[in-house]
């Protein structure tokens, strides 16, 4: 995976497969602590303890078409390569939370990438799932909850082009995309 936004897409697809109805994605940058935190929380079917233990093993998968599953091992590797950490907690029938932390200034820390594109693809592909996207950068805070938007839209599907366009614009603004890139280049 080239950047963190692709890891998000990949791990959230697991939540979708687990039958989640609501998926919460937190991305937090903390300059003073030199930390980048990613947390993905779903209300899917969850895992038992044995499965939690096995998911970061590349040779474990729930797929039937192949015997290899690399999504979570890749994210774990990406975090550990830059002095970060990785953890999973899950409860059968309740849901799963995947967390990864990264040392923000580490030379090997992957860039955030196009998080707006990831959210767009997730919402377009899964219009009936509620997504909460929460982005924090020091004191700055941005939240997009598709459940709130869905309520206001009164029957207009989340994947209609007009809605997707408006959401994309909102997320990109919320992420302060330009500002962020400047910071990454210079800082």
């Amino acid at each position, binding site marked *: *995976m080239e950047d963190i936004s*692709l890891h998000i*897409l*990949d791990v959230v*697809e697991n939540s*979708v*497969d687990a039958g989640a109805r609501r998926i919460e994605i937190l991305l937090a940058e903390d300059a003073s602590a030199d930390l980048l935190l990613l947390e993905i929380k779903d209300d899917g079917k969850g895992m038992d303890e044995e499965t939690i233990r096995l998911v970061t093993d590349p040779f474990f998968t729930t*797929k039937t*078409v*192949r015997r290899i*599953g*690399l*999504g979570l091992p*890749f994210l774990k590797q990406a975090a550990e390569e830059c002095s970060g950490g990785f953890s999973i907690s899950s409860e059968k029938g309740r849901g799963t939370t995947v967390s990864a932390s990264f040392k923000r200034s580490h030379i090997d820390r992957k860039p955030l990438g*196009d998080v707006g*594109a*990831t959210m*767009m*693809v997730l919402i*377009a*592909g*899964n219009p009936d799932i509620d997504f909460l996207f929460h982005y924090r950068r020091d004191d700055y*805070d*941005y*939240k*997009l*909850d598709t459940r*709130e*938007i869905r309520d*206001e*839209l*009164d029957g*207009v599907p989340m*994947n*209609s*082009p*007009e*809605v*997707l*366009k*408006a*959401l994309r614009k*909102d997320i990109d*603004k*919320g992420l302060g995309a330009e500002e962020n890139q400047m910071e990454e280049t210079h800082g």
Partner: protein
Amino acid sequence: MARLTIEDLKRIKEEYKSTLTLREGGSRAKVTVHMGTCGIAAGARKVMEALLDEIKKSEVKDVIVTTSGCAGLCSKEPMATVEIINEAPVKYVQLNEEKIRKIFQEHVLNGKIVEGFALVMGSETAY
């Protein structure tokens, strides 16, 4: 701190309702982009974005886009499956933005399978 205002959403709702009659026929085609780890690593998100862009530009209202997981042919990713109503699904392999745009124009809009990008044509068994 969402910047989308209630007014924005109301406007979208009005726009949508004004074209509702066009949508009543249900969906005519479904395109599934394979979004497993292998697909994503190979560029499936760009393929999906290009597809959403084509749909927006063409203003068609009866095409559904969805995602699925790994189909077991990781080396052929990015892949997408096009299903036109009452026709057999066609799997396309090793896609990029240009290829999916062409598939959308020719297969989804005009019903002509893009043979060059399809996984397999005809029978799977050899007699």
